Structure formats: C-alpha cells, structure tokens
C-alpha cells in the first residue's frame, strides 16, 4: 500500500480499496475488486482496459453515480476533500458539475436535443453559481474560447453541430464551473480519426495540467497522448500501474504486453495484431487467483494465488512479470 496522504497535500482524487458490487440471481458479484487510485491536483491519470474491466464504473463512482443496483460495497472515495460515499444529496450536487466536470463518450446523446447550446451552458452555470446574466455570458464566452467554438453556436441546437463541435461544447460545459477534476469517459471513441486528433489536441492543451484529469479509455495510444500515469485494469483490478511512457514501452504485465501487441501498429504498415486467446471472464465467473491466467502464456501453478501489486515506480500484479525470467514451464 502506498502511504496514505493527509492534510494539505491531499490529492484531488483519492480512492482506497474500492469495491463495487452488483446483485445477481446467485448473490452479489464484484465488478471492481479493490482499486486504489490517487491523482494530485493538475495530475493526469488514465484507466485503460477492455469492456467489463470495471474502468467506467470506477470513474462513475467518483461522481457518486454508480448505476443502480450496483453499489460501492467497500472502500473510500475522496474527491477534493469530499467523502463521496457518505455525501448527502446537496454535496453530491456540488460534486457533479461543480467539483468534477464529466466529458461523456457519446456527444449526441449527452445533449438535450430541444435546448440550444446557449441554454444548456446557462443551466450548467446556474446550477452551481449565483451569477447575473452578464457574468454568466462572460463565463460562457471564455469557455467557448477555451474549446475553439464561435459565439454563434449558442443559438444553435445540438443536431445543427457536427460531432466534433458537440464534443467541444461538452468539454466547455465540463470546464465552465472551474472544476478541480475532469472525468473523461472515452472522450474520442465516437469521433472520426481526424476529429479525434483535434479533440486530443484540445484536451492536451486546455485540460491536462489545469485540472486533475481522470481519463477512461480502451486505447493505450489515447492514454499515452494525454496522461502521465496509467492504470491498466483487468477483471475489476488494476494489474499494472506506472508512468505511461514506461508502461507502454516496457510493459511488465503479460496482459499489458498482449494489449499492445494486439493493436495494429501503424509504423510497420502491417505487422502486429497478435491475438490474446480467449476472452475476459464474466464478472460472475470468480476464478481463484489471477484472472488473466486462463489467457496467459506465462502462467504457472503459482497463478492460482492472487498476485498483489508489487512495490516500485512501475507496479504490477503478476507472479511472473515480463522483466523477470519465467518462473516455470510456460507451456499449457
């Protein structure tokens, strides 16, 4: 365990031993199984993983928004000194949009189609600040400048904007109340390649460094573009944690290495895409020990015991990390 940080050096986001559970016909199932996160003010952290890894629900829990019937069953979540798990509705209201700005994945469904962009901005400000019209207009103007939109979008409806402009507007709304944290859940996944490049550039220039950024993504390339630190999640746990540049260039966990090898490598023009066999386990399938062992080329009998994150700058939860020789017979 890293030393708990207290007092004036408290991080913007601090998550300790978080468990999130959902009821099923066969009892409670853990979707997130003991996650620790810490993001300093101005820090950038990516949660990377595939569907079902628990990354999105972890991010939602920062906003006190785990979708029912899932609940935070264990652990603590502090955002800007607010204890999220025990916060009342009033505090949660301040948290959502005031302390944390959320940039959602799909810019189309996130905007009320019958409201103009201007009235949506106005609502976001008015629900968190008591300001006169002129002051609100000034704030909106600054937010639009931040995200590279012209004033005339304010009188337009979401469908009159392109996908990239809608995502810019949402980033502007997330920033307009001057939050300390931005949670961005796959902010470029729904966008075309050239528009994704624009939005990544915008997020890198206007968000990273100014607030604490928690980025959810399945794409290690996006994580590397925006975040200094990365947490790779698999089956509800963080399996590797470290500086993004280290994790991407010298992965220690076989799963991280597998993810990197599975993506097509544009630099080589056609080499790459080595599949990881099998599929991630369903949350209800509780496997004893390491959840990745069924797909792992380095597994041994030791993997039936749960590996914990080791110590050091680049931490990994694996008995046989890639920077160590294989502990035993790697054949199936």
């Amino acid at each position, binding site marked *: 365990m890293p030393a708990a940080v207290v007092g004036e050096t408290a991080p913007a986001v601090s998550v300790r031993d978080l468990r999130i559970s959902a009821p099923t016909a066969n009892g409670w199932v853990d979707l997130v199984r003991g996650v620790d996160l810490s993001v300093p003010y101005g820090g950038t952290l990516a949660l990377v993983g*595939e*569907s079902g890894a628990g990354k999105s629900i972890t991010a939602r829990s920062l906003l006190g928004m785990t979708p029912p019937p899932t609940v935070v069953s264990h652990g603590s979540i502090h955002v800007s000194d607010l204890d999220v798990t025990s916060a009342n509705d009033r505090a949660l209201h301040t948290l959502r949009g005031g302390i944390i700005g959320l940039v959602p994945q799909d810019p189309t469904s996130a905007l009320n189609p019958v409201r103009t962009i201007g009235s949506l901005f106005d609502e976001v400000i008015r629900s968190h600040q008591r300001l006169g019209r002129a002051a609100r207009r000034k704030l909106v103007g600054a937010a639009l400048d931040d995200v590279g939109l012209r004033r005339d979008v304010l009188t337009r409806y979401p469908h009159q904007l*392109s*996908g*990239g*402009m809608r995502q810019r507007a949402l980033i502007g709304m997330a920033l307009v109340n001057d939050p300390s944290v931005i949670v961005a859940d796959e902010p470029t996944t729904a966008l*075309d*390649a*050239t*528009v*994704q*490049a*624009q939005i*990544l*550039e915008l997020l890198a220039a206007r968000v990273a460094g100014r607030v604490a950024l928690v980025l959810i993504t*399945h*794409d*290690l*390339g*996006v*994580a*590397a*573009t925006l975040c200094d630190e990365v947490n790779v999640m698999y089956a509800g746990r963080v399996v590797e944690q470290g500086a*993004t*540049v280290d994790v*991407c*260039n010298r992965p220690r966990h076989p799963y991280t290495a*597998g*993810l*990197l090898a*599975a*993506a*097509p*490598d*544009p*630099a*080589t*023009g*056609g*080499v*790459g*895409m*080595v*599949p*990881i*066999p099998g*599929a*991630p386990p369903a949350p209800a399938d509780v496997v004893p020990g390491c959840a990745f062992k069924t797909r792992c080329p380095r597994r041994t009998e030791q993997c039936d015991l749960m590996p914990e994150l080791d110590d050091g700058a680049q931490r990994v939860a694996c008995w046989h990390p890639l920077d160590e020789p294989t502990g035993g017979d790697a054949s199936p």
Partner: protein
Amino acid sequence: MAADTTTVPGADQPDGTALLSVDDVAVNFTVRGGVLQAVRGVTLHVDDAETVAVVGESGCGKSTLARTICGLYTPARGTVRLRGVDVHRATKAEQRTIRRNLQLLFQEPLPSLNPRLTVKRILWEPMKANGMSRRLADAEDRIRDQLVAVGLDAGAAERYPGEFSGGQQQRIALARLLVLRPRLICADEPVSALDVSIQAQIVALMLDLQAEHGIAYVVISHDLPLVAQMATRVAVMYLGAIVEAGPAADVVTRPQHPYTAALRSATPEPRAAGTARRIVLPGEPPSPLQPPSGCPFHPRCPIARPHCAWDTPPLADIGQSRHVACFYPGELQP
C-alpha cells in the same frame, strides 16, 4: 464532375477476369435539400483470395459503396459485376448465384442475429433459402463443422446468440456467411465494435479462412493501421471519391495524398508517449450536399495552393500500382 476513368486498384485486370469489378459507380440519394452524391465515380477490382480495403471517415461513402456492391442500392451510373455478371441487372437465376457468392458481414454482430433462433437455425436459414437444405436435421453435421471451423464448440449450435460474447457473435455471423461457400465477403467495419484483444482474433480468423478457402474480402473501415494488417490493397475515400489507392503496406507507410498522411498521423501511438508530432486537420469533412469546388480536400489541406480551389486533380497513376488524386503527391508526410 471529376469522373475520370482511371481504373484502380488492379488497373491491370482486364474486365471479366476479376472476381469483382466496380466501374465508375456513382450513387445519389434524393434528400430534403437536394441530391446527395454519396459515391462519385468509384472504380475498383477485386481478385480471388485477396483483400481490398476501403478506408475513410463518416460520410465518405464507404458504407454506401459496400451496400451498392451487395446490390442493396442501385447506382445512378456505372456497374458492379461479379464474375462478369451485372449485380444490378441480373436475371432471377443469376441473382441467386450472386447472393450465394457475395455476402455482407455487418459491424455489429448481435443486431444481425435473430435473438429468438438457436445458432443452428441461424446457420440453416441461408442454406434453406438457397435450396441447399430442406430439413434442418440433414444440415446439422455441416452446421457443426462450420461452427468448429470458426473456432466455436459444436455445442454452440443449440444455444442462442445472446449467450455469447461479442467476439463469439461475430464468429457466428461469419459462420452464417460461410455455410454458403461465398467467393466474396463484403465486411463493413467487421471488428470495430469489438475489444482490442478480440479484434486481433477475428482478423486472424478471417485471414485463415481466406488462406484455406480462397475467399476475397472487401473490408470497409475507418482504421488505417487495421487495414494495413488485413488488406493487400487499399483505397482511401474522401467525400465520395477515391483520393489514393495502392498496395496497403506502401500506402500506410508512405502515403502520397495529404489526407492519407493526416489519417495515418491521427492514430495515437502508445509508444510515442506525448512526443508524437501529429498533423491535425482543421475543420471536419464537408457535407456531401455542398461539396467544395476544385479538389474536395482543399479547405482542410495543409499544403493546398490557391489553384486547388478550382482545379480538380484526377486520380493519376504514379507508378508501382499506386494512384493519387493530388497535384502535390508525397509532399506531406506523417
């Protein structure tokens, strides 16, 4: 219009010998606000056992092209021929042959599979429709073999699509096409709905099936690195027309059109953490309802000259099986 007659890719293929010949195909839609030219004169050829990829962003016309190839849309101009038979003017008997040999694989496997049928019935439906099997009982051995061939258990036959993961569902969708022994599969974003580790599995499976049965693919994708992995040749589309075509590895590593260079550069690379120089294009693809004058790419092009606003570059042969529609090929590199 910029309807040049250059034949790419596979310009050296005389008509009739190619498995699929798409010649100067244009597709229009009448919409409120005028005529939308979704595809504006596309020519490409596909041989047996090869993969031709069509790459582009939303609205470039790539999916319209795929559906036109499969006979779902009728072109305003041009022809689509499978082994020399015009897909859109075929007789009833010819249509049967075409449908069996030319199949469409969808992006999202689950909505394309009937949730209330068992997997074996899903695989039997096309066999029944094509007169290959009257009774399910007679086809069951074939169905089980096909499921095993796509990497599923034979026992999958008795289960329902919703019981499978996304990657397994895409395997079922592939098996449903393969029971007909098609010559050509048109795959519209075949892996983009899947997780990264599963994408690589489906790509490997598709390549194995190709090696074994000589199936040809037309792969429609927005993902340039992916098609570099899958395709023999690639055509890059922008606003309804091909702007660059050639051998996949060459196009991806040494793009000649500035749009291809920008697409290539837009892919964030994990190993380049933060230091990557990226070409970021201004604006977004223009509306096909109001295409720009001259070169359709000029409003966003980092290397455009004034004359690009009124001169339309033809898709020109630049040697080594490569074609590019730009007055300044190769000038912008990722």
